[in-house]
């Protein structure tokens, strides 16, 4: 019998919330990817996005605000055989969790990071999030936003993420395809997901986004993939990704901006000096015999301390 990737829990997102589309795309992607559900872990932070793991029938961990990435990295590095996905919000990932977000670009551990991007902190009643543009005023703000905004696409590129994409929660077909491709990507991927908050973001609504979005893949010449470490190709792909990443006001591109297959993942980098790491990662090692005797020889391991 096919595994049901949805749990039977009642979902408490607001009616009309973009999160429903993400949940649909995610569970379809998991189902179509054919992955053993026991080998998938879904990690989230805090906020509306943070509830996602409870609705998905794979192992899930609803962590601390902003900390989904380091939890996920620990899981992945202890057992690189697992597929580890992260669902997070814009405030969660680019505000309180920004340090971890940037650090993960350097590591390229192999996470699939989804950012539910609605420009507001919904669960705490609509404060401006790091992706809200300067001067924008949504209904719960007493004054226009006096912060500039972070661009998730160009930040992800600068941080070193090797797969950068944008989806729209009301286009579940495209989003599902992006998630599936991101899951196959060996390094870490970021998917910025336009996810209108029907309760607190009355400026960028589903209707507004629907009019502005277009798909990168509709241009037949669009090719974001880097397959060899040719300097020229790298430069060209980065430049086009940044250029598309800067588009926002009138038209908003969705799809895959950048995919670099040449950067070794962190587990591969570890295995270069720890030869047995991929075969016997920390989680699969046995540390004692059946009597509880440690299998380590401390005197030999620390022979350099013997006088």
């Amino acid at each position, binding site marked *: 019998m096919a595994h049901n990737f949805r749990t039977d*829990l009642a979902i408490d997102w607001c009616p009309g919330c973009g999160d429903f589309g993400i949940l649909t795309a995610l569970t379809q992607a998991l189902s179509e990817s054919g992955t053993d*559900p*026991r*080998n998938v*872990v879904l990690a989230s932070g*805090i906020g509306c996005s943070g*509830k996602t793991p*409870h609705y998905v*029938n794979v*192992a*899930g*961990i*609803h*962590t*601390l605000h902003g*900390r989904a*990435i*380091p*939890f*996920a*990295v*620990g*899981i*992945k*590095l*202890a*057992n690189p055989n*697992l597929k580890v996905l992260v669902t997070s919000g814009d405030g969660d990932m680019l505000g309180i969790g920004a*340090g*971890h977000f940037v*650090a993960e670009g350097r590591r390229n551990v192999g996470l699939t990071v989804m950012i539910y991007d609605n420009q507001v902190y919904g669960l705490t009643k609509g404060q401006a999030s790091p992706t809200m543009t300067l001067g924008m005023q949504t209904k719960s703000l007493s004054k226009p936003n006096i912060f500039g905004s972070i661009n998730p696409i160009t930040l992800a590129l600068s941080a070193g993420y090797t797969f950068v994409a944008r989806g729209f929660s009301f286009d579940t077909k495209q989003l599902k395809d992006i998630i599936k491709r991101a899951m196959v990507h060996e390094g870490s991927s970021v998917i910025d997901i336009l996810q209108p908050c029907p309760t607190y973001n009355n400026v960028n609504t589903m209707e507004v986004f629907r009019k502005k979005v277009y798909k990168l893949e509709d241009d037949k010449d669009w090719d974001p993939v880097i397959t060899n470490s040719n300097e020229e190709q790298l430069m060209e792909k980065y430049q086009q990704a940044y250029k598309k990443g800067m588009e926002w006001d009138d038209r908003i591109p969705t799809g895959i901006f950048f995919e670099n297959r040449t950067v070794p993942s962190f587990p591969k980098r570890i295995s270069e000096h*720890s030869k*047995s*790491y991929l075969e*016997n*990662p*920390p*989680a*699969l*090692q*046995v*540390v*004692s*015999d059946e*009597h*509880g*005797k*440690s*299998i*380590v*020889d*401390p*005197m*030999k*391991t*620390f*022979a350099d*301390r*013997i*006088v």
Partner: protein
Amino acid sequence: MSKIDISIVIGGPQGGGIDTSSNMITRAFSYSGFPVISVREFHSNIKGRHSYVHLRVKDEKPKSFRYPVDVLVALDPDTIFEHFEDIGKGSKIIYDTEFETSDLSQARMIMRDTAQRIKNELESKKQPLNIKGVLNLMKENGGIPIGIPFSKVVTSVVSEGPATRYFNTLGASVTLSILGVDKDSTKSAIKDIFGNKEKVIEPNLKVVDSSYDYCETNGFKIRDLGKMPAKKVMLLTGNDGAAIGKIIGGLRFQTYYPITPASDESTILEEHDSIKWLEEESQNLKRGGVTVIQTEDEISAITMACGAALTGTRSSTATSGPGFSLMAEGISFAGMDEIPVVITMYQRGGPSTGLPTRNQQSDLLFALNTGHGEFPRIVMSSGDVEECIYDSIKALNYAQRYQLPVIHLIDKTLANTTEVVDSIDPDLVPIIGRVSPEKGSEIKRYSLNTENGISAMGTFGNNIFWMTGDEHDELGHVTEDSMMRDRQMEKRFRKIETARKEIPVSEMAQIIGDEKADITLVTWGSQKSLVIDILDDLSREGIRAKLLYLRMFQPFPSEFVSEVLKKSRKVISIESNMTSQAATVIRTNTGIEIKNNIVKYNGRHMTEDELLSAVKKIIEGKSEREVLRNGA
């Protein structure tokens, strides 16, 4: 009583090879069969400021340090200035004759306040504000200056490179020669330290010869120390001990963010990540090594270790006060979500950045209370290097057994103390695993069907279950149901009662010394061995006393401690902090107030001389509270 008892301070500029000198001295004495203990003191600085190693040699394992020293080895003028108070009758001061022209005003790397104190002292004794003035002062206190032309001794035998390159070897060799350590032992030490770098070993051996000749010719040698049967031993710091214990105890994932004095443990693990196995026991088992990850901050360090722990990997992190502060939310999560994770917490001087490279025991109450909300945890502490080894195995065991955060406290003095360890026996602490569910099953991760509070722990990759920092139901989904909340809180706290029942009291607190003595000294951490020496000192003066040594603060052995203290006439707490935190823990748990306290919070290790006089003062009723102030 020990026939041999030698105290040495060797000092010089940070980055100037002090560690190498001290290593030579320690190893040379070891080759001669004499055990050494040493501790490093240094500034938060890469190059230039005063750093020193305090050593003690005995014919039986030394346990503590004392002033005045028998030999002060100065590799720079600052060392002479800085240690002006550490000289007594017969102390030898070994220094480069070139220092004799140095002025205090030129010693720019001495902290301004220290320089002012030295100046005041010299002025009050009508001495010039230079090295000669300090040496005069030292002579007044019975010190014997031994000026040696460092450059000449080196260049007479070695022509390649600057002579200064060999000053650390010279300082060590002169010390060893004066103290009568045979030259072969010194040469063996040199060979150890420089490994197979023949080109480096050769000139250094020449400097050993030249230094020994110089001391011989000038009649500096005090005596022939002779040789005791030397057996193979390990020279280990507290940092080493924790790393070794963790590897034995099955640690396979460690995270850290660089911080003094904790990150040495992680770099030691990195250097030894290719574990050597017991072939017979492990041949059919999956073996790999330790994965050590440097993280972007300590929030990441604790949460990443938690993530790894959830795959079934024995995981830990190591940090110090400032990093531990950042870990608070992660530790609270580990408590709520019942994650087996070990936090090795190296205490240093706080608050804030405080004294980043100095000793303190001021984070005990913080360790007991870190993290918002109420959750069970184990807080334990080690007092010597061997305890660092075995306690690290136990910490990993407790984390697995009770599925909670274990905070293992080690203080800076212990972390940077090098002790002789005869051998390591992993069989002393067998590995205890966790209660696991059937493989592949969808489980109730937080099953309430448990008397001792311990539910079978599913792992990612084997089971499907959920976790959340919110209060949760048995499946791990968010709940705000009032009854489920109560039951989950009570289940979590039952674990600490289970731990209290299962962990032997001797692992929590011990009586050392004369059990019937009605004077009780109470301490924890690195003062353990020092107080044992004090018990001997007191008994030589006809004073009977015992030590109540505390090792675990949560769960706390309230009944045991209460019994001991009730039967004591005089109780004195001895701690390296300002507010006697362990005494506070005792009062909280037993209602007994310890009225006599000895404290030290200047960041330097406690020494035998200052502690003995403080204890005696209190026993004689001349004082209730003593503040110790030794140490440059």
